[in-house]
């Protein structure tokens, strides 16, 4: 990354905007079953908020907000979550990923909505961690030849 962009307006606006972007990403994630959106969109939006911090406030500030130790388990959480939920559905007598067979609640539709939301959360977490990691890896400057 080039040197830090020292402009008080850009830095202040980026600092102010970030929580609202993250709040909207969480809204898109949790309302994916009722309104447009879902795991992929929410994950990319959440990653975009960290990319905004890295561009406006410096790479180190963004790395402090999402630490590598925290990202490491999140990266593989999504596929694992998906497989575990699918196998739970098989164990309850349905097909792979047939969510409505899990006897969690009496209403099958509520079970479907809850498990679909759980899968979406896993997708969103993985996409967020992976896009952030790809950005940090590329912007890290370890292989900078210039």
């Amino acid at each position: 990354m080039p040197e830090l962009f020292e402009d008080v307006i850009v830095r202040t606006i980026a600092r102010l905007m970030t929580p609202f972007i993250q709040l909207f990403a969480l809204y898109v994630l949790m309302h994916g079953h009722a309104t447009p959106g879902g795991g992929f969109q929410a994950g990319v939006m959440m990653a975009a908020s960290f990319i905004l911090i890295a561009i406006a406030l410096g790479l180190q500030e963004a790395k402090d907000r999402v630490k590598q130790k925290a990202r490491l388990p999140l990266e593989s959480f999504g596929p694992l979550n998906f497989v575990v939920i699918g196998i739970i559905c098989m164990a309850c007598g349905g097909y792979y990923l047939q969510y409505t067979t899990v006897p969690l609640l009496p209403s099958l539709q509520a079970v479907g909505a809850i498990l679909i939301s759980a899968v979406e959360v896993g997708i969103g977490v993985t996409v967020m961690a992976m896009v952030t990691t790809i950005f940090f890896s590329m912007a890290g400057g370890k292989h900078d030849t210039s």
Partner: protein
Amino acid sequence: MIWLLNIALLMLLVATAIAVVVNKDLLAAAITFSIYSFIMAMLYTQLNAPDVGLTEAAVGAGATTVLFIIAISKTSRREED
């Protein structure tokens, strides 16, 4: 009257697509490509596909542009024939 907006957006889409291909300044091409993605997102929303529009606006105009700019900053800014 919505067809007027559609035609204007489609003409802008073709113009930005040609500008991306023709431009020799790669940074300008990357920024023009993000404008292309934004127009595409508006067209998807216009076609009653808000999910795809949201994805296109977040991924196309946000993430890939940043990755392109990082790649340009690590190589050269001008295209050589």
